[in-house]
């Protein structure tokens, strides 16, 4: 639930920045920092697409995954892994962009900082979700077998054993 809510807020922030970048919004509300300077710099594009649009797409994927995971019992662990991977990558990307703002553009975009913060929170929440999913998975297997959790079960889960 937390991830879905955060992803929704993040998607709205990214939508706002994307609409600015494509010209639907002429001016950003930006009382702190210099949002327009950052968003008109060359770092505001990535592979020919506005960074904000990449962010929007990422948040939408995160939102959908989070909503699916809220509804379903199965696949929780796999979804949690995807959430961790996607948000982890996005946190790294946001950190790289923030470093460009600080050391290359010498201007801060408060909306970009907000997005980076939201993405970090999603990453942390995803880690918690993954831990929870792994515990639930183990408990379920324990419940199913009526015995101690298998050590090397070969139960079809990929991505390493729960013990790491």
């Amino acid at each position, binding site marked *: *639930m937390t991830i*879905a*809510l955060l992803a*929704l*807020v993040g998607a*709205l922030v990214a*939508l*706002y920045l994307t*609409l*600015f*970048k*494509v*010209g*639907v*919004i*002429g*001016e*950003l*509300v930006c009382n702190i920092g*210099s949002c*327009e*300077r950052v*968003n*008109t710099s060359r770092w505001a594009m990535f592979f020919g697409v506005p960074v904000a649009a990449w962010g929007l797409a990422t948040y939408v994927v995160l939102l959908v995954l989070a909503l699916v995971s*809220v*509804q379903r*019992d199965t696949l929780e662990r796999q979804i949690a892994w995807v959430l961790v991977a996607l948000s982890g990558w996005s946190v790294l990307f946001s950190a790289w962009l923030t470093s460009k703002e600080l050391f290359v553009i010498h201007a801060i975009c408060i909306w970009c900082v907000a997005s980076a913060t939201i993405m970090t929170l999603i990453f942390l929440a995803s880690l918690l979700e993954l831990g929870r999913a792994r515990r639930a998975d183990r408990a379920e297997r324990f419940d199913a077998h009526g015995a101690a959790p298998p050590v090397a079960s070969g139960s079809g889960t990929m991505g390493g054993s729960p013990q790491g």
Partner: protein
Amino acid sequence: MSQKSARAQRSNVVRTQRAANLKPFYIGLVVVALIGIALIARTAQHSDASRPTIANVAATPVKAEGHLLGNPNAPVQILEFADFECPHCAEFATITEPDVRKRIVQAGLASYRYFDFPIGEFSNSVAASNAAACAGDQNKFWEMHDKLFQGQPDWSGENNPKAVFKAYAKSLGVDVSAWDACYDSQKHLADIKANHDEGLRRHVNSTPTFVIGTKQIPGAIPYDMFKAYVDTAAMAAASKPVAKSDSAPLKEAGTKP
């Protein structure tokens, strides 16, 4: 078998309970989404200061003044009719004009006056003229003129030219809030139109077009040719010291030494 069905039953009950519990959550999400979209729409509406155009500016008796550089009483007057978004104008402004300013205008041989002549081919010409005129209110017209031409690829054809112009204004040390208010008010559109009309009156049909003394020369001419025209005009002026050129001194605006 019975253990399995019991588990399935339990799972169904949990799922039904969860669905009921999730209702407020979904409603909350929808509310957040709607509030967010409404805020964005409001901002978009507010900031949709439509692209400035001189097409709708009523024919006003505003006199074409251009933007002056140098001594208005110099023996030769040079007029330039240019479009901030035209590539040839940018080529002249960045390659030839620095020499013209240094060796002709600063040397006192001629005055130089820039007239906005948005040719209608580009989407942001008038917006750029508006941005420069607003910088001119704070005596930074020529600095903004240079920024606009040097950075032309950054804003030409962009949907958000104002963001780039604003960044230029900021970098020039212009009072950005005053510049911003001026830009949005579009109060210089009548002046821009007057400058454009002056070009039409002179049958300017391409940019850049120069008027040097009494000669009208289209195209981004090289410095040597430019200087030759100035010398010719200076000689003509010297032989007729009382005569006034067609480009009689206009009101000083944005003067830069």
